[in-house]
């Protein structure tokens, strides 16, 4: 079967893939999004747009991805189940396909309480695993969750996220397996700082044969400052930032910390490439999209393969 997207093509050709993401604006003017995405063009195989991340209302991922498509980028639309019921979710999946968006990332989403509309009803009609199944059913069986047939099936490469560092640790691999069973074809993980722990997780993943059934892209977020390192270590749920990295960042004066953050990211990328089963990286350089071209170049991951044919 022909790959649905450029990203799928890259992964299936066993080229080490690079994806990144853009955060959309908290407003109707997409120019900041366009600016960020143009920085990434040529350095990544596909670009994710987050979907009301941390429950903060932003320009929706679907519209943002349509804009990215117009720029010639392979977009990954992120869909959370927090904000939409199955009617809207399936409708949006059809919409994404109709707009030529060929990668879909299925997530549950951060709880409403973290965002700027804490009084909103948290929908969670489906969870991320059920959404994966629904997306696959629509694509492969041409029917809705209820079984009602579609007049034409959507086309997309289906993905999910996994956090190797959240609890319960050993159950995470079982959960990954469940997602693969449900329809996940690629996985983008939470950003990796603790290489050893990630190696252990990958070992378990390989033991279950999952590396042959799903393409795993390891998340990488370059640290901008010691403050950021500290914050991520202490305050972000499901994140494992080794003390040693925080020390490395803190031991330098503020003006040198960014460069050190880049160094650390490059070390992590290099280590990740050595791990069997890791098929690519997902660079999440939040509000630091300019870092991506430098990272990709210095990691010797350029040039990126050019898109073949009509996507």
């Amino acid at each position: 079967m022909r790959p649905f997207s450029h990203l799928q093509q890259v992964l299936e050709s066993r080229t080490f893939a690079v994806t990144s993401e853009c955060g959309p604006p908290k407003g109707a003017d997409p120019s900041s999004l366009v600016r960020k995405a143009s920085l990434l063009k040529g350095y990544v195989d596909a670009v994710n747009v987050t979907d009301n991340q941390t429950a903060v209302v932003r320009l929706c991922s679907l519209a943002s991805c349509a804009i990215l498509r117009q720029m010639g980028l392979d977009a990954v639309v992120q869909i959370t189940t927090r904000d939409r019921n199955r009617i809207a979710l399936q409708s949006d999946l059809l919409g994404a396909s109709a707009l030529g968006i060929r990668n879909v990332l299925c997530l549950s989403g951060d709880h409403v309480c973290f965002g700027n509309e804490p009084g909103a009803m948290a929908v969670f009609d489906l969870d991320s695993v059920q959404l994966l199944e629904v997306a696959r059913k629509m694509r492969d069986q041409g029917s809705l969750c209820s079984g009602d047939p579609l007049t034409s099936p959507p086309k997309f490469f289906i993905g999910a996220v996994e956090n190797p560092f959240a609890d319960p640790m050993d159950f995470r691999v079982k959960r990954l397996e469940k997602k693969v069973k449900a329809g996940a074809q690629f996985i983008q993980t939470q950003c990796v700082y603790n290489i050893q722990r990630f190696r252990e997780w990958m070992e378990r993943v390989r033991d279950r044969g999952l590396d042959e059934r799903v393409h795993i892209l390891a998340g990488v977020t370059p640290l901008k400052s010691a403050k950021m390192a500290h914050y991520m270590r202490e305050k972000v749920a499901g994140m494992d930032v080794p003390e040693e990295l925080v020390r490395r960042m803190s031991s330098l004066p503020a003006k040198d910390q960014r460069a050190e953050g880049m160094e650390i990211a490059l070390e992590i990328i290099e280590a990740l490439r050595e791990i069997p089963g890791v098929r690519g990286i997902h660079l999440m350089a939040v509000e630091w999209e300019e870092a991506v071209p430098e990272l990709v170049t210095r990691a010797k991951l350029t040039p990126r393969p050019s898109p073949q044919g009509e996507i």
Partner: protein
Amino acid sequence: MITAVRKPFDEIREMVAPYESVLLVGCGTCVAECASGGEKEVAILASQLRMDASLRGKRLEVGETTLDRQCVYEFIDRLSPLVEKYQAILSLACGAGVQAVSEIFPEAIVLPGLDTTFLGQTREAGLWIENCRGCGSCKLQWFASICPITRCAKRLLNGPCGGSRGGRCEVDPEVPCAWNMIVERLRKVGRLELLEDVYPPCDWSLAQGRGPRKIQREDQAIETV
């Protein structure tokens, strides 16, 4: 039980402001158990209202009575001789009780003295925890008797999510991650395989109904001859 908490005193004062006599009606079941609307709480609120009225130079006669259950017509009927003696009724029952009373006495002003909160258990003295959301389709047998719809903040049926940390929910570190508990319990009894298959989407129509839900039992109905 159904739990509830007493409304802020200011709100109650404002509700009874237009009246010179009010009957406080408590309920001896759920709200007595969670210490918000039982006989004791009726006495306390009545005392407060009388003192408050005195301090403000306002006339307020406050009656007190408590029904065994305020959601059952047979018990509510016992209010009949009292209702017309007061300008308003301040019910300290859950929302079900307030409305049941109001239905039996449609001419009366029936005010809610409590904010009804959730279905739960008394974990220990002074601590009530939500554990059921009345989804209409109990699935506890699949989840080691820990309800993911109620106790997982995202009601995941294929959890946990990526935010579970140290067995705690990302939303509130005081709240245990329900999925962590489910996994641990199933692991302990050797039944983790229950989580291998994808749990399909819930039929929420059983939870939301078409408007208010009802149960009807012919075998329980009484026919008047």
